């Protein structure tokens, strides 16, 4: 009886010791204020709050400084970047480059400017940030690293549409290992599954990471209309015509009075 108790205690000590020693054992938990964003008629973008907490002995949340980098990545889509060139007197789209799996949304939030958190090489090895996000383009020789002009155009254009964000959102330390940040989804956000990855940095290296999912989807009437238009395009067109004919006839009747 007593023997058994001693053995259990011994196990507990071993487990505790292992937790204490292993750097991968940092407990990191995160959660979102809303894990499912519904696009309805009044949708005009959404602001989410991500909460996270670090708790373990490898990082002493009360005394140790740590940095947080949060990467939100939207569903991948076939994205084309086109470049205009002057042909005769007019400017027309000439060259184009297709990125078969560019994220439709990409946001990096950090507790400090990225350059102060870790070296470029560290971010590069994890593919974090505009400069390091691995992204391939379709070329005649298959998938390859894109031309830098087109790559930077992709990031510049998507950033101007509010779809790519970096160095704009800050992760705030609340204290006791607790942190939070805002995630801003613009009105033109693509629908699909989003991956929210949280990285804990200490002394320029990653100490812990975790990922949670976020879903953005059209709901209700907007979902039904979209599905109808894409699933039954002929019938959708016919309904659109019938609606127009009825509306036009109504307008004619009302206008006569």
């Amino acid at each position, binding site marked *: 009886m007593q023997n058994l108790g001693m053995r259990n205690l011994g196990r507990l000590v071993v487990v505790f010791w292992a937790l204490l020693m292993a750097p991968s054992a940092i407990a990191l938990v995160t959660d979102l204020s809303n894990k499912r964003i519904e696009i309805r008629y009044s949708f005009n973008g959404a602001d989410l709050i991500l909460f996270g907490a670090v708790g373990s002995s490898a990082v002493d949340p009360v005394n140790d400084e740590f940095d947080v980098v949060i990467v939100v990545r939207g569903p991948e889509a076939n994205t084309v970047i086109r470049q205009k060139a002057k042909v005769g007197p007019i*400017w027309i789209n000439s060259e184009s480059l297709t990125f078969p799996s560019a994220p439709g949304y990409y946001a990096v939030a950090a507790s400090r400017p990225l350059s102060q958190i870790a070296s470029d090489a560290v971010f590069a090895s994890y593919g974090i940030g505009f400069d390091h996000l691995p992204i391939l383009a379709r070329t005649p020789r298959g998938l390859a690293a894109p031309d830098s002009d087109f790559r930077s155009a992709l990031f510049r*254009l998507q950033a101007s549409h509010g779809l790519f964000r970096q160095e704009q959102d800050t992760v705030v330390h609340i204290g006791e290992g607790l942190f939070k940040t805002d995630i801003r989804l613009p009105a033109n956000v693509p629908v699909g599954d989003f991956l929210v990855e949280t990285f804990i940095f200490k002394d320029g290296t990653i100490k812990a990471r975790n990922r949670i999912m976020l879903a953005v989807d059209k709901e209700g009437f907007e979902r039904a209309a*979209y599905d109808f238009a894409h699933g039954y395009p002929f019938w959708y067109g016919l309904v659109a*015509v019938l609606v127009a004919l009825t509306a036009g006839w109504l307008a004619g009747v009302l206008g006569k009075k």
Partner: protein
Amino acid sequence: MPLYLPIAELSMNIFLVIGMGAVVGFLSGMFGVGGGFLMTPLLIFMGIPPAVAVATESNEITAASVSGALAHWRRQGVDVKMGMVLIVGGAVGSFFGAQVFTYLRSLGQVDLMISLAYVVFLGSVGGLMFWESVRAIYRQHKGIKPKLKPREDRHKAWIHALPFKMRFRKSRLYVSALLPLAIGMFVGVLAAIMGVGGGFVMVPAMIYLLGMPTNVVVGTSLFQIIFVTALTTIFHSVNTQTVDIFLAVLLLVGAVVGAQVGARFGLRLKGEQLRALLALMVLLVCVKMGVDLIVEPTELFSVGEAGSH
């Protein structure tokens, strides 16, 4: 108040959309035109993807033409037989126009095609209309009355030589069916690629090429536009899924009210003055489109989804 448009996939202020409909409706009511040539560029300018703007505007024009055509129908102002021939041509033209549209969209050249079509057609039609109305105003000023040709001589010799002649009683015409077929087809292509009804091309063609009496021209043209834009809507919906019913209905709400006010306002102006103003407006849209093509854009790159993988 923002409203999310499920097909355009963006959010727009509902009052802005209705307001745009009202302004264009006012102008179209005043000048007695469909207004597609104003609305489609305006929608593109507001950030609606060009493909959605063109397809949705087709849908709105169907609605706008119904009320106009009904009014002409009550006044016996529709030549149904002529309309049918124009519709057959229009259906063929619209089908091919929509195919070209879809193909160019996949190449990323649809914006260019829309702009070029606007510059060419608005430029020529607006220019002719402006010249004609200025001349009319000048003549009226001087008291010169142009001689009217007798109806029989209005057709050129080559038109008489065409085969497949058909009798159109309402228009009091005996003319080859090929001519209205060709006109209808041309208008159908324009409807599909420009998001317009095509009245600005069809009405002059009916008057000057076919020699139709003016009392049936507008009604018959509206009659054709209803069917051709309806077909165009379906073609675009099947090919590219770019028809946004919600946007179309909202625009229509504004357009209906605007057109009523505009029609009353238009009564205060003389025909030549109205035509000159309309011509100026057409040329303005043409110049805006043309300048955008010529001036070096500040951003040379643009992003687009290739759609199907």
